């Protein structure tokens, strides 16, 4: 009894379902809404599908001739506005199936029908000529106006970002940092005092803002007793060009004066000229003496 009832339920469901599929395929088995232009085919699955094989390119090109894409409609009528990009793209694709780029049953919008598009399907030469399709998208900012190189030097087909920009591509203009980075100049006393006469590249490189290449040790070497805290020696609100060693109790101006005069040194106001570090050994003295002698002569 159960067996026959169960068999009957199975057969009846299968039969009704099959009839439903044959008469109303769009209602019964359609996995999603077709694009607007294909809606007319909604109950004629076999106009696109081949049983057991899916969607084959030969059926697509039966209506959409590659050479006419963007130029003429499927009915053969010339388009009011020719889509040369689309035409170029479809005529330069290498051996691929339409379904490699195009999908269906994904909603009315045509945008959703090309979600599978990959630049790799284009001919290798066209892959490098981005502006042929993307010319209106080229940014007109400081960097891109300066550049004449191919987009693919910095960007890849996976996306505009991340890019691999190299300053070397700017050629002679690569040291004109301010033309692109003016807004990024730090708003602090040090950089305000530097003004516009000194180029950024004198202290920074195109590899990154930090570490800076400015070498303070050419003037004075920091150590534990003389840490690199600017305000210890400089009046940071006024100028980094001037400095003083008398901001600590160790260096008393009277004592320093007496000590130097005792040794016959009269020119001792620019301490770092002789004292390049906190070490007792005087590194700059010989050089300074030479200069003093040259000055006397």
């Amino acid at each position, binding site marked *: *009894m159960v067996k026959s*009832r*169960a068999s009957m*339920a*199975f057969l009846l469901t299968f039969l009704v379902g099959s009839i*439903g599929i044959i008469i*109303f395929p769009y209602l*019964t088995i359609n996995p999603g809404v077709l694009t607007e232009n294909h809606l007319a085919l909604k109950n004629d699955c076999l106009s696109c599908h081949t049983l*057991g094989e899916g969607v084959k390119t030969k059926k697509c090109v039966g209506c959409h001739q590659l050479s006419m894409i963007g130029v003429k409609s499927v009915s053969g009528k010339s388009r009011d506005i020719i889509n040369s990009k689309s035409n170029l793209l479809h005529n330069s694709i290498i051996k691929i199936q339409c*379904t490699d780029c195009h999908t269906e049953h994904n909603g009315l919008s045509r945008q959703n029908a090309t979600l599978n598009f990959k630049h790799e399907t284009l001919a290798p030469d066209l892959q490098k000529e981005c502006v042929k399709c993307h010319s209106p998208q080229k940014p007109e900012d400081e960097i891109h106006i300066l550049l004449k190189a191919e987009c693919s030097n910095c960007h890849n087909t996976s996306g505009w970002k991340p890019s691999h920009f190299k300053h070397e591509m700017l050629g002679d203009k690569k040291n004109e940092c301010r033309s692109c980075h003016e807004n990024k100049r730090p708003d602090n006393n040090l950089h305000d005092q530097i003004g516009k006469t000194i180029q950024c590249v004198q202290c920074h490189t195109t590899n990154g803002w930090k570490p800076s290449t400015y070498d303070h040790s050419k003037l004075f070497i920091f150590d534990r007793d003389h840490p690199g805290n600017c305000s210890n020696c400089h009046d940071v609100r006024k100028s980094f060009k001037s400095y003083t060693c008398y901001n600590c109790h160790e260096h008393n101006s009277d004592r320093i004066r007496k000590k130097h005069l005792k040794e016959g040194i009269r020119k001792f106001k620019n301490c770092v000229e002789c004292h390049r570090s906190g070490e007792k050994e005087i590194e700059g003295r010989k050089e300074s003496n030479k200069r003093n002698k040259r000055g006397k002569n």
Partner: protein
Amino acid sequence: MAFRLVIKKILPFVLTFVTLLIAAVLLHLFLHTSGYKWVLRYLGIAGTFLIILSFVYSLRKRKLIKFGKSKLLLQIHEAMAWVGSLLILVHAGFEFDAVIPRMAVFAMLIVVVSGITGKYLLKQAKNSLKEKRAELLAKKLPEDEIEKELFALSLIADKMQMWRTVHIPLTLIFAAFALLHIITILLFWQW
């Protein structure tokens, strides 16, 4: 009293079903949002295989195979059918475009509810048998007499028989819809 009955006897079965629905929604949303949407297609295949495998119990029960203990195979049937249904629910998602796959999912949910009901009835039956046996033992009846009495306990057998007349046809209705869905996919999809 009635509240205790609901909490103790019915709630665990209701929770089995509610957990299935919640787990399916969460898993589906996770796969959709985490870039693993492509996995959804394969979950349908995995779920179907699990459910088919769970029918080893039915084969054993009808003595078409002779290995395995029925009790263990029943537990495996329940677990595999639950996990299989979960995978199919995750695979199906919340899109309601085509009637056939939707009917398959709907039929599957009814079968799950029916299966859970069967589990509840079976537990009730076992409890009744236990109580009846204890009662007969208290009367100090001989063992063979007790077995005869229990065998004659047709009320429970009737209930389970009635349940079977619903559960098995429902399962086959689900199977018919699922089969139609699989056939149409094989016919129209490009693998």
